[in-house]
């Protein structure tokens, strides 16, 4: 238990530092876990309690993702979203999967690494877009829809991975049944749900917590993946009052998700026969592949290589979803690889996202100077 408190305290200090420096906190949480845990000082170890907290973190992360999936959402330009999404999927997942396989991972491990390699950190990307004042850029919309597309792909990946060796028809029948059940409740109980959420006592927060937890345990009972079910619960409840649910679930998500990152770090074991060259290659490729996909998207959607650079610098960071895949399906070796990739890409990514503004300004002012030299009297 002391280890747990130490971890919490370290996280609080790290959160303060990362907010002060305005860099993403996720890599610091994982690093803290690595340093405190198995691979480092060995002060903190994972046990049943920490395991439970980590699981809560994952469940609330996915519940939030579900709340964001508003199915009736109008997409301004569906074909652009689809094209950029598919470019990202084939390029990044392709490079990730093939290189992992060539580097000697098994087929299954390569698939997990490929998926973790593909999925960008929505949390880091969006926070950095807001903090770097990039919301007005025309590439921002493309990047945001890219994140939504990735979320959809993640759901499919989770469904594929969790079906395992079960009877597929029975598996999907059970999922359909549970989905139907949730939508019926959200549809017919809408008034009741909203009346609960409107109260200003402890009921809304208690209800949110209970709904998420009971859905997860109900899923376990039915033998269907709780990950998918909490996403579905989020999506179903998003049809009632998503903002209220977000508000009441946020405290749980914030605390549990930090613990999820730390205890993921704690369980990482760097002592096995790790090949650091392989891990370094994966990290470099993770940065490089987003350059390729970013360039292709920039050229097809915006017709400009500059847009490609902007998309690249803003989508380098991998984070929460990559770790979720590592925790759910990764072997220790895959876990260590993904952990390093997340730490490296999120740190590189946050600096790239910041630096891209200066770089862009530099290029713009340079071309403006050139224009002034050519037409000295027309300039301002």
């Amino acid at each position, binding site marked *: 238990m002391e280890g747990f408190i130490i971890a919490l305290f370290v996280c609080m200090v790290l959160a303060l530092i990362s907010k002060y420096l305005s860099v993403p906190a996720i890599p610091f949480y994982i690093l803290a876990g690595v340093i405190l845990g198995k691979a480092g000082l060995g002060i903190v170890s994972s046990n049943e309690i920490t395991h439970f907290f980590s699981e809560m973190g994952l469940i609330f992360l996915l519940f939030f993702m579900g709340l*964001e999936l*508003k199915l009736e*959402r109008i997409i*301004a330009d569906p074909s652009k979203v689809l094209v950029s999404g598919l470019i990202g999927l084939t390029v990044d997942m392709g490079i990730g999967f093939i290189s992992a396989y060539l580097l000697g991972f098994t087929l299954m491990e390569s698939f997990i690494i490929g998926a973790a390699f593909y999925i960008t950190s*929505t949390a880091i990307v*969006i926070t950095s*877009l*807001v903090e770097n*004042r990039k*919301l*007005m850029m025309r590439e*921002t*919309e493309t990047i*945001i*829809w890219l*994140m*939504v597309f990735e979320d959809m792909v993640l759901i499919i990946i989770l469904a594929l991975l969790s079906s395992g060796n079960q009877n597929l028809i029975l598996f999907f029948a059970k999922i359909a049944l549970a989905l139907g059940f949730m939508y019926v409740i959200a549809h017919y109980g809408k008034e009741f749900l909203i009346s609960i959420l409107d109260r200003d006592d402890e009921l809304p927060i208690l209800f949110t917590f209970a709904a998420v937890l009971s859905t997860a345990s109900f899923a376990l009972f039915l033998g269907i993946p709780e990950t998918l079910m909490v996403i579905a619960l989020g999506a179903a409840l998003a049809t009632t009052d998503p903002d209220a649910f977000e508000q009441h679930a946020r405290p749980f998500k914030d605390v549990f998700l930090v613990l999820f990152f730390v205890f993921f770090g704690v369980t990482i074991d760097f002592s096995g026969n790790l090949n650091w060259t392989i891990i370094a290659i994966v990290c470099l490729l993770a940065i490089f592949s987003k350059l390729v996909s970013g360039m292709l998207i920039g050229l097809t959607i915006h017709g400009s290589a500059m847009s490609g650079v902007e998309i690249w610098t803003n989508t380098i960071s991998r984070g929460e979803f990559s770790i979720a895949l590592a925790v759910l399906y990764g072997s220790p070796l895959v876990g260590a690889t993904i952990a390093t990739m997340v730490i490296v890409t999120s740190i590189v990514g946050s600096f790239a996202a910041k630096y891209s*503004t200066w770089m*862009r*300004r530099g290029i*713009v002012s340079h071309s403006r100077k050139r224009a002034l030299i050519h037409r000295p009297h027309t300039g301002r």
Partner: protein
Amino acid sequence: MFDMALRSLNLPGVGTKYEFETDKGDTVAIFFTKTGAIQMYTLQKGCKTPSAAEMSPVEARRLGNILTGAIIEADQESVEIAFSALADLRITIHTIFVTAAVVGKTIEELQIRAKTGATVIAVCRHDRNIINPPPAFVFEEGDAALVIGESDQIRTFENEIMVK
């Protein structure tokens, strides 16, 4: 007045975006982010990089008041509401600290409505608000009055009733 194209857009995970282009070709974009902060971007015609400012909701409301044309001084603040549908009806709500000239007098005595056309709709006294003060209401030192009317009426009120 509303023929300028105002685009509003919901950006998943970020918030809501409002954008419009001015007659002169400059672009203004406002983002209400999920964190509660409000970001305003302005992009001059022909420029590539916008300038941005991040505001808290209170700051954004102040900016809104300034933009609607209300006068804001250090201790006095007013809000002007324009109803474009009603022949451009403009109503100003103005806060003003009472002066020695009115302390100890009632609203009836001062003949505020008859003389100026403006109406005192609320008085703030020691952080407590008195809404719709009756005619027999007596002003005290330190009161802040909330007056509603057209801007001319407000000016008359300031010049003739709240004499400094």
